[in-house]
């Protein structure tokens, strides 16, 4: 049996770890609330943008526009949104798995990363990192998304890449986050909803020109929405990870206290036996 001192040392060490995890849990809870509020505020913009673009595309299905047509040559770009910091449970790993499990071989992919964890893990696995925007992930704003989408569209127009995917974590609710992959370009024409069918829409300027201007905004809004979702998910994942770490520490402390008490009892009993034995020997 380990000595009392050893057990005590172990217990104190776990206790201080628990204090850290507890504090981290509290901070990520606060950050989660903030991130979630922001994600919710960005939702109406995103939803409306999605609706409009879909309605436009459904109606103008036969438009020949570079953004809508698949190309034959070029690489596949993947925008990977992870975090800059660890201790968030499976958050970063799930996204990396999603990317490595991609059907396109890694020689044909270009990675745009947001978040150092994803960047480091993917470059170690031999992926080509085209650009990195990790510094924005702590507090993404709309102009950050504009920069990313501008770079993407430039590469797309130059024929360097033929399609663009986005890998991020969708924030379902506080406890469940889902790694997702969506296709940004070429834009997939969605199904027209019955509601929109009834309204014949006029475009000014002409549809093709309007698409030219709206699609970059559409991409930006998806990237922005994904960033918001990812930040909320990151904090949610960290909160959960820290919560279970705290309760694990609690369990370990409990069992160590039990061991400690038993060891103390044992040493008292032994001392008593020794004293009695000594007294017996004298008399």
């Amino acid at each position: 049996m380990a000595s009392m001192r050893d057990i005590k040392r172990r217990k104190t060490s776990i206790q201080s770890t628990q204090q850290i995890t507890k504090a981290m849990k509290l901070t990520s809870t606060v950050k989660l609330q903030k991130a979630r509020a922001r994600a919710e505020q960005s939702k109406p913009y995103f939803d409306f943008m999605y609706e409009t673009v879909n309605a436009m595309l459904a109606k103008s299905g036969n438009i020949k526009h570079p953004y809508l047509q698949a190309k034959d040559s070029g690489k596949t770009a993947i925008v990977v949104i992870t975090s800059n910091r660890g201790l968030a449970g499976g958050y970063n790993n799930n996204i990396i798995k999603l990317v490595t499990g991609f059907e396109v071989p890694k020689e044909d992919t270009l990675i745009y990363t947001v978040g150092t964890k994803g960047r480091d893990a993917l470059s170690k696995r031999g992926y080509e990192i085209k650009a990195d925007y990790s510094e924005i992930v702590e507090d993404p704003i709309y102009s950050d998304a504009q920069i990313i989408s501008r770079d993407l569209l430039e590469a797309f127009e130059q024929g360097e890449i033929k399609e663009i995917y986005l890998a991020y974590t969708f924030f379902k609710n506080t406890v469940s986050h889902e790694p997702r992959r969506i296709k940004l370009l070429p834009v997939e024409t969605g199904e027209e909803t019955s509601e929109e069918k009834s309204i014949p829409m006029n475009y000014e300027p002409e549809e093709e020109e309007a698409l030219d201007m709206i699609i970059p905004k559409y991409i930006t809004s998806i990237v922005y929405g994904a960033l918001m979702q990812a930040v909320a998910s990151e904090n949610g994942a960290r909160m959960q990870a820290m919560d279970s770490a705290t309760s694990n520490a609690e369990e370990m402390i409990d069992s160590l206290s039990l061991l400690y008490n038993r060891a103390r009892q044992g040493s008292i009993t032994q001392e008593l036996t020794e004293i009695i034995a000594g007294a017996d020997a004298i008399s």
Partner: protein
Amino acid sequence: MAELMKLQVICPDRMFYEGEVSMVELNTTEGEIGIYPKHIPMTCIIAPGVLTITEAEGLKNAALHSGFIQILPEKVTILAEAAEWPHEIDVDRAEAARGRAEERIRTRDSKTDIARAETALQRAVARINIIK
């Protein structure tokens, strides 16, 4: 009493404005337009300029930078990448930005992105106009 329609101005990070209005005026890439209720359905691209909202209680001005507008007979929705109320605008910054943009356009060389400088100028002018 004038007829009313629903107006929503949505920014990426907030709902900028939501309410019943009788008229909306703004700048599009095709020119300045004013919209009354019962307008034909239309989608336009917004150019930087002043957004004027006529409510039952009076006028409201805001600077509107880029985005697009969807007009339906009963409802107008503006998706703005950026919009500001007058009190949110920093005049000195806007003046400085106007100076910079004008300078860039005047001293144009092969490297200057004229389109970008021009939108920057338009944005700055919109901000300044709204305060005056």
